[in-house]
């Protein structure tokens, strides 16, 4: 090595990391923020009345928010994962029920179709999906397969030019409202290679909506069972090849996790904003802050982590937009952001006290909504194992 490490004239004007949003992305974020203020005013009612945010989703479709992950040739705006993450943080900071609906539609269904479907399939379904005429749902989990997705039992048996599908899917977000389902089903006995992905339309005979879950939070987002009884699925509704289902599912989940990480950031921000507003109000007659030091610490720690975990999320999104595998990075983002939003929500309820639990402010709804982020699209422990495996795997 050279005697002098730093005698590098090259070091002038080198490219440095950039943590800011470009003017275009910042403008996009601001536009979405304004849109949220104008169209998500019923967030409290969706929750209290267990009501699907139909009006908000329709407005989102009109504003083009349901087509960000679709290529332009199929009517999308091809904005990619980073812009979708920015958008989802904004929406979820106001209404997580609307947020998860859009996240599943964009990050799971549209992304999957765009990446794995053939041209004819895209021409067939995207026109309805990008306009929001149809909403999409992602049907992977079953009663006996949650974290262990490969244990799924739903069956698709080839019979001539179609498959006969039988089974039941559980925990399906937007289940009772979606018109298009991506369904993972067993086409062979092999635990992993026996799984294939299909598109199934709501209107086909044998497709039914089962039990609707009564949940802690996200009450505006219907989570249902989807029952498949002798559903005749045309062979041209198979996504990619037989046996590729599990690969497709895992790949899609990397993107889905970015959606949930962004949802978590939005929820965390909402909680942190409540805390900040609470502290801002605490001033004495001379305008000096009377907020306690422990309360200020709480705010400081949460705010720092919000910035830090947003960077983790954006890093993974940029990687995915560049076509780079980002399982570890997406798992870091989801694991950290989802824990943060729960921590922030609990802190908000604690700090806002009685006003926080009576529903006078959104703290208690935020607490309830936040809790699912650590569970769905891969529970925290699964994310941690993904990360650890990436770190300790022999090179």
């Amino acid at each position: 090595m050279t005697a002098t490490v730093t005698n590098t004239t090259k070091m002038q004007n080198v490219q440095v990391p950039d943590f800011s949003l470009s003017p275009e992305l910042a403008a996009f974020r601001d536009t979405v923020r304004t849109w949220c203020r104008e169209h998500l005013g019923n967030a409290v009612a969706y929750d209290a009345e267990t009501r699907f945010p139909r009006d908000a989703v329709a407005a989102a479709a009109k504003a083009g928010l349901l087509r960000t992950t679709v290529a332009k040739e199929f009517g999308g705006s091809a904005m990619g994962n980073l812009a979708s993450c920015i958008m989802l943080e904004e929406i979820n900071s106001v209404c997580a029920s609307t947020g998860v609906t859009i996240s599943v539609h964009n990050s799971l269904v549209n992304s999957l179709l765009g990446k794995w479907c053939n041209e004819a399939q895209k021409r067939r379904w995207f026109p309805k999906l990008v306009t929001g005429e149809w909403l999409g749902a992602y049907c992977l989990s079953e009663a006996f397969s949650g974290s262990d997705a490969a244990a799924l039992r739903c069956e698709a048996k080839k019979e001539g030019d179609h498959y006969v599908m039988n089974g039941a899917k559980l925990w399906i977000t937007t289940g009772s409202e979606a018109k298009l389902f991506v369904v993972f089903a067993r086409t062979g006995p092999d635990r992993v290679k026996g799984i294939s992905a299909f598109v199934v339309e709501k209107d086909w005979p044998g497709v039914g909506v089962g039990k609707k879950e009564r949940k802690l939070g996200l009450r505006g987002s219907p989570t249902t069972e989807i029952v498949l009884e002798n559903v005749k699925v045309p062979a041209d509704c198979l996504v990619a090849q037989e046996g590729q289902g599990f690969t497709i599912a895992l790949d899609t989940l990397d993107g889905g996790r970015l959606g949930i990480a962004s949802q978590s950031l939005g929820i965390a921000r909402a909680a942190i904003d409540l805390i900040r507003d609470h502290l801002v109000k605490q001033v004495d007659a001379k305008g000096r802050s009377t907020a306690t030091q422990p309360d200020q610490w709480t705010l400081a720690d949460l705010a720092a982590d919000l910035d830090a975990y947003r960077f983790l999320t954006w890093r993974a999104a940029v990687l995915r937009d560049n076509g780079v595998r980002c399982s570890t990075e997406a798992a870091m983002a989801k694991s950290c952001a989802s824990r943060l939003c729960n921590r922030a929500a609990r802190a908000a309820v604690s700090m806002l006290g009685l006003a926080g639990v009576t529903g006078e402010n959104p703290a208690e709804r935020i607490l309830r909504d936040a809790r699912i982020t650590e569970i769905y699209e891969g529970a925290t422990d699964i994310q941690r194992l993904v990360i650890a495996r990436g770190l300790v795997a022999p090179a």
Partner: protein
Amino acid sequence: MHNLQLTEDQELIVDTVRKFVADSVAPAAQEHDEHRAFATNEFAGLAELGLFGLAVAEASGGAGMGFVPFVAALEGIGEHSSSLARLWIGQVQCALALESAASSELESVVAGIEPVAFVGPEHGLRLEGGAIVGTARMVPAGAVAKRFVVAATDAGKPVLLLASGLGERKALRGLGLASAGCANVVFAGAKMSVLAHGDGADRAIRRAQFVAWLGTAATAVGGGFASIAASRRHAGERIAFGKPLLAQEAVVRKLVNARHAVDAARQLVWHAARVQDLGEDATVAAVQARLAAVDAMVFAADEAIQIHGGFGYTVEYHVERHYRDGKTLEVLDGGSEALRSLLAVRQFA
């Protein structure tokens, strides 16, 4: 329970309460919660068992049994219904405050004819021109009680009041304690009488606060155990990756840590109850118990939801209710931050 060293009388009471809970509280607890139905029958059941005068002196018409059986029994109730536990706590708060104030209202509270509600000093109510000014938020039984025992201040001095004849109040759609009939209460136009002033009021109010802290702690211990038991059940049945969840060290580790937190809180609760029954000041012990127990309940419920996965997010598995109830218990009676400030004064001033 031998480690609490209950007397035979005490043991009998605790067993009776546990049987009552198993038969009459557990089956409907989830449904009441979901429909925000006030636990009317359950309340009547507690009254029938004569529990409202448990810690009231025999000379005052109570059972004179102290706080040890109180916390042991509350733990059993807390396992199934924090709402009902808080209703009982409210009655005992009123009873002991009334006993302190030597009020003739005590008898009817001990008899448990109807729910009475206690309003603590944390609401900052003031007596002004013969009227109670201010709003008391999230008062258990506040939506159904006809009488309220109210801690307020009169020109800065503590005063204990009895209020009745209030207008209609609506049960809140709050985070938790959904079948405790919680309501925001204003006393405009209420009938009002003074039960005690100054030092006397102060003593009565402190006594009622102690009941709330200690009782909530015991309730939370029960809630914590309930989450652990539900998780263990689920983890024993649910198969993932070819074996029950309970065979996965990650799941068991959560259970161990939750159990550790709840067991530790329980020792603090028992310690506080014992010290108080020895006739000493157990305020610090009760506050420490309350802080540890509620944190442990929330922690256990949080881990229970995680162990249950998607199931835990639904109402059928009870653990989401314990999570909501735990966070709600945390902000009652002044909230945890105020209690830490109290400890600061008592331990380090």
